[in-house]
């Protein structure tokens, strides 16, 4: 596998991870405040539709973005009404919102545009164009001609929609809000023990609505990115399960912003890899697998090293990821060096072509494996899912 392929893979990961990341952070705010939200999917879809529809009619993607966000916030408000004000079941409300968005978007689209639940294709200012940084190439074929550093610059750093950069900024921002502001402290508290917040004289209802609205805004960005950034228009059901994957990423990230970035990027990467490597031979597949393992071990090693430096870990903690790194790099290189034409085991292995379905399921399989193997128990915010009831 050559360098540019890896870059393209990472580049694709960034794009695919962005809607996940936004939706994941949306869920993070909501669930941190104790409101479970399986309606991320629906809100994303509604935002995708309204942003595309209004971007088309107004000709401005920014107006579209605002409308999309507003639509998502409206659904959030509905979720809040059901689960905060009327203390309904948060899961049911989420399910209802998913159905509602799936149906409504198409019904309205059909009424407005008569194109079978689609918006017309967006062009020009009605779309988020990729931002090409100074000196960067934009087209894949031009990038391939550049030097490695230039490739990194053009492929990875440059050439994304503004929403990608915004979403990357939202990660530290979320962290900062949650852990460094009064609002964040209260938000986290209300998800853990609303009674504590209530006795402290703070409005539980107010906080939870605020969280749900933030969730709506972020979901709105995610949906708008899908319809006006990644593609040029709305197609029915175009969220394609990403809301659920974002939810999985959220649990995977244990409800923490930086981890959410990691989880979403990993999911995006697995997705990109599944797209890129369909119909591959077993041998290539194995060497790729070990390469991925090596990457994961390297990350673990770095994390452990940082913890060691901070005095939160012993040197022994470095051992396992270290060994894993050496072994997997060795195996990956070894397998790569085997010549499939030379006969013997290599040729034998190479006769197996993995079915495309396997490669498409692989990201999901890997998520399960990683979850079971690397991540411990995920403990959700303690008051999550329970309406706060205070007799009056």
């Amino acid at each position, binding site marked *: 596998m050559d360098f540019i392929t890896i870059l393209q893979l990472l580049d694709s990961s960034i794009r695919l991870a962005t809607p996940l990341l936004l939706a994941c952070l949306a869920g993070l705010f909501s669930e941190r405040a104790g409101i479970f939200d399986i309606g991320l999917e629906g809100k994303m879809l509604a935002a995708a539709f309204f942003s595309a529809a209004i971007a088309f009619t107004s000709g401005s993607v920014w107006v579209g973005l605002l409308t999309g966000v507003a639509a998502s916030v409206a659904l959030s408000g509905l979720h809040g009404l059901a689960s905060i004000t009327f203390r309904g079941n948060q899961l049911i409300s989420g399910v209802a919102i998913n159905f509602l968005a799936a149906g409504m978007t198409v019904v309205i689209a059909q009424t407005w545009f008569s194109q079978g639940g689609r918006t017309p294709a967006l062009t020009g200012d009605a779309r988020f164009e990729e931002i090409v940084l100074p000196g960067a190439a934009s087209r894949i074929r031009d990038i391939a001609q550049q030097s490695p550093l230039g490739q990194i610059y053009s492929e990875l750093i440059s050439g994304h929609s503004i929403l990608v950069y915004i979403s990357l900024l939202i990660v530290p921002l979320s962290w900062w809000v949650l852990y*460094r502001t009064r609002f964040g402290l209260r938000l986290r508290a209300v998800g853990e023990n609303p009674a*504590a*917040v209530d006795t402290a*004289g*703070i409005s539980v209802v107010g906080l939870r609505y605020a969280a749900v609205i933030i969730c709506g805004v972020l979901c709105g960005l995610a949906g708008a990115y899908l319809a006006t950034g990644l593609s040029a228009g709305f197609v029915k059901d175009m969220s394609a399960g990403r809301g659920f994957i974002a939810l999985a990423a959220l649990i995977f990230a244990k409800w923490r912003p930086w981890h959410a970035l990691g989880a979403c990027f990993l999911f995006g990467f697995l997705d990109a890899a599944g797209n890129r490597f369909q119909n591959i031979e077993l041998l290539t597949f194995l060497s790729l697998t070990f390469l991925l393992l090596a990457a994961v071990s390297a990350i673990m090693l770095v994390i452990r090293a940082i913890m060691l430096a901070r005095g939160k870990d012993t040197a022994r903690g470095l051992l396992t990821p270290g060994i894993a790194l050496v072994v997997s790099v060795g195996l990956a290189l070894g397998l790569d060096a085997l010549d499939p034409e030379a006969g013997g085991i290599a040729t034998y292995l190479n006769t197996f072509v993995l079915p495309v379905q396997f490669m498409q399921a692989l990201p999901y399989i890997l998520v399960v494996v990683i979850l079971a193997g690397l991540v411990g128990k995920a403990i959700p915010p303690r008051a999550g899912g329970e309406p706060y009831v205070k007799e009056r």
Partner: protein
Amino acid sequence: MTAPAIELKGISKAFGPVQANKDISLSVQKGAIHGIVGENGAGKSTLMSILYGFYKADKGEIWINGQQTSIPDSQAAIRAGIGMVHQHFKLVENFTVVENVILGAEDGAMLRPSISKARKVLLDLEQEYGLEVNPDAVIEDLSVGHQQRVEILKQLYREADILILDEPTGVLTPSEADQLFRILGRLKDEGKTIILITHKLREIMDVTDTVSVMRRGEMTATVKTAETSPAGLAELMVGRKVLLEVEKNAATPGEVVLDVKDLRVVDGTGVERLKSISFQIRAGEILGIAGVAGNGQSELLEVLGGMIPATSGSVTLHGQPIDITGRESDGQSRRRRGIGHVPEDRQVEGLIMPYEAWENVAFGYHHDPKYQAGILMNNSAIKADCAEKMERYDVRPPNPRLPARNFSGGNQQKIVVAREMDRHPDLLLVGQPTRGVDIGAIEFIHKQIIALRDAGKAVLLVSVELDEILGLSDRIAVMFDGVISGERLPEDTNEGDLGLLMAGVTERQGAA
């Protein structure tokens, strides 16, 4: 004379058909410590919740420092200078101490200044009142005693003038309680007004200036503490004379029932919770285990009760070995072997709160053949059994169809006690049997434990109440840091001596 700090006039509150407070009036002078006593469900917590704006009274007025004040929510209460330490702590478990303290009392939108200010204030408070806690400790890592300090610190940080404490000592060790009262004394000296709700009459006698008695939602009396006695208060509360001392005959220990040798428990995080514990209990004997919470008593009960496996060691019951590390390590097989277990926390362990009383009466014994009808459970048999047990153990109301959560703490405990003792287990494990239970129920439960002993059964009693340990036990073992730091006979020791053992001082300090 200045206006009273708190004056309640004609407060009434009903929860549906339950009249929790009936026309209650109360007046507390500034700078006084006022006690409120009453049975479980008498309405004490409700009254205080009204004062703190948690519930809205159906009728009545609240006057603070001579001014009529409306308290529609907790925020208004805080503004009126009222602070409350609830019976069940209102702390965010995975936050640090300082985060809990500033929650709701932050100085600005940013946390950092608030936190550094709070750190300073906490340091001052610590020096002023001896309330030491590590500001960066996470609540769930703290002992209950420390958690309670955090609750008090929260109120002090808010500069509350009126402090309400709802059963603050229910979960504290005697020394922790003493310390709490010293702090309350100091607060009082500063002119703060304190309302103290407790079931422990000794505490009332020791620290309060005045005391009110509540019964079935009504305020039956308010007296000066100096002019009353524990027995008098008890009678006012329950409506009859109550035995405050445990009455029991001398023990007649028989053969060894439980023999524990070299028991070790290492928990999931690698911490050694029990370090080679060995002891025996004979038939007709109560072994009391004293100790500050968190020194291995819970793990001891859990291992013997089959909730967690031991790492090594041996346990025999009537000479027959019990498999404590392997497959047989579960509550069911322990019950089959004749071990009853009243757990330390009835609400989290002993009962399924949404289950109705009859379902809870079968809990853990649901495999009992007399509860079965073929492959199904014989629900009517269980209900009948439950009604009968409720009758005999004086559970009120005696309604098998009421969910456990709708019983008061004392009655919940009676349900657990009825379930575990009514089968006359050869060995009864009891943890904190009377925590948060009113004196009427305490008397009852103590009698049951003695009766079981007198029937020739072995009892292992774990309690942080030294009164209880001293009153019930035939032998006392003290646990400290996972080991038994000493053994005493009750007639041969006193609270001071036990207190030292509990603190890890093993030399005998001239017992009484």
